[in-house]
């Protein structure tokens, strides 16, 4: 399946369909990395920044962003990292994962933001950090406006 540009012209929004993981609709600027995040001491809770040294997202805050990462590694405390983010007011606006495993599934429930996963396409081919992304989990639709297209 190839992405369908809307509006007919180049640079129009890209629409990708997936499965609702957690309901709701939200939008924001994408923060994208095709690597996993660790499961303990993951975020600075006063800024929402990823702490791991050497990680592509290290030093970037997930607050109000559409977080798009490969998933989890390490501790079963992965969901707890996102629970802490929500309580600290540092949660992402929405999240997108290529696939949902046990750690990520639980994290979506405690974060309570819209989440979509299980796309036919490789989501990392479709979106880059800085793009404007709308996650309509109620309809299983991700809409991407590329930053380099505007």
């Amino acid at each position, binding site marked *: 399946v190839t992405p369908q540009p809307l509006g007919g012209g180049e640079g129009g929004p890209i629409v990708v*369909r*997936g*499965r*609702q*993981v*957690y*309901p*709701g*609709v*939200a939008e924001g600027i994408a923060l994208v990395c095709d690597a*996993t995040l*660790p*499961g*303990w*001491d993951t975020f600075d*809770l006063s800024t929402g920044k990823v*702490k*791991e040294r050497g990680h592509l997202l290290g030093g970037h805050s997930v607050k109000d962003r559409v977080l798009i990462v*490969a*998933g*989890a*590694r*390490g*501790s*079963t*405390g*992965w*969901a*707890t990292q996102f*629970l*802490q983010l*929500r*309580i*600290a007011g540092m949660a992402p606006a929405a999240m997108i994962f290529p*696939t*949902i*495993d*046990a*750690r*990520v*599934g*639980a*994290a*979506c*429930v*405690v974060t*309570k*933001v*819209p*989440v*979509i996963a*299980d796309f036919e396409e490789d989501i990392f081919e479709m979106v880059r950090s800085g793009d404007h992304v709308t996650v309509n989990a*109620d*309809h*299983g639709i991700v809409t991407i406006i590329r930053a380099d297209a505007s």
Partner: protein
Amino acid sequence: VSEDPGALTSSAGSKSAVPIAASTIDDRGDGGIDEGHVNTVRLTEDEKAILDGREGRAKKKALEFIIEYARAVGADRLVEISKAHIFIGAHGYLDIASSQDVDEIIAEMYLNTSDRVVLERLSCFTLTDATPLDPDQWEALGLPQSRASADQRHRSRFRTAGAADGGSCAPYLIGFVPLMGEHYVSTESHALLFMNSVWGARANADSIEASVCAAVCGRTANWGNHVISQRRGTHVVRITSSPRSVHDWDLAGYAIGGMLPPKAVPVIVGDFDRPDAECLKSFFASLATSGSADMCHIVGLTPEAPTMEAALAGNAPLETIDIDDAAVAGALARVTAEGRGQVSYISLGCPHYSLRQIQYAAEWLEGKRVHADVDLHVWTAVPTRESAVRSGFVARIEAAGGQVFTSTCPLVSNAIPDVQAMVFDSMKQARYVSAVTRSAVFVGSVDQCLEAAITGIWTGLPA
């Protein structure tokens, strides 16, 4: 809040309150939702009764969590569990909770609700995971009275609800024994990897929150390792580094974990003799640190892998990964500090030491003396320490100048000493401690660690 499940909304704070019941009943109305993209979770009559609130509000809230979790992962029904191993106690991460009240903390941090909910009787046999402190020796670890008091309140609350005090990350060594095909939950990533793989028991590495909710409502999502077809091997791992010792297996596990994608189920073959339980304890600990595997087959050793073909269920592997000497050395180099020098803190026992490992350390230290500038800590579970006391092992370690603590570890107790350099016999402990300290963190075998405890010098990695 209405007790009518048809009017039930997702927990407070959600921007889009979506009817849970709408996704749990086959003939639901559309509710404005494009149903093709929403997973349906079917409930039994008993589960509907719990959701109705007929078994109390805590169970109802816990089941709501499990239903949301089941929907998130894509399960079509729930499964009853027989046992739970849960990470409770006044752990430091709970400090972010909005309240100091134990019941309100439990509601917010485990049951995912800001509603007033009081924990009632847990639904199955429940054993506690590692706790924030050694309940008998916390002062010796320099931990504050306030933490000990808070922890006592948490443990007491869960004991009242029926939880047994285990206080170990290695529950399979102290009587938590789910057999082949048995459904359970555990908050400890390596422990469930051990019990799933070695015993054929069934759990997923989901989370603290989902596991506590499962203990409360007695159910989890019927998905992942609970389902035979999802336990089959996906990736073949060929080990050519000839692992023999616990340390060798610790390194191999770390190397493998970093090379597996999410949801991979590795099938291990290689040039090794049968690893023992202590080797696998460390192998699974590091495998579940650098990666996210929660099921692993070892051909000829684990029960669902009598042969490679059986482990893969006849499928071709998605990938074959080679773990050679270079891969193992690379894993160690990613975690341990370089160089040599004075060390003043040595920690053994992540995951918690078995009785046999304590015996080994005790006999190794016989007639020796830990360096005056070194603290040597050994970590284990309460019943294991008790047996070690009765066997004379603890006395021998203490006579040499070491200490044997229970129920926690440097990382979980947040009792990481402020020293220049420290040594661990665990890739997992070293990896996590490295992230929260400026000390040099070295990793070595138990022999290298004990040698450093005696000399006060880390001599570096063997050439």
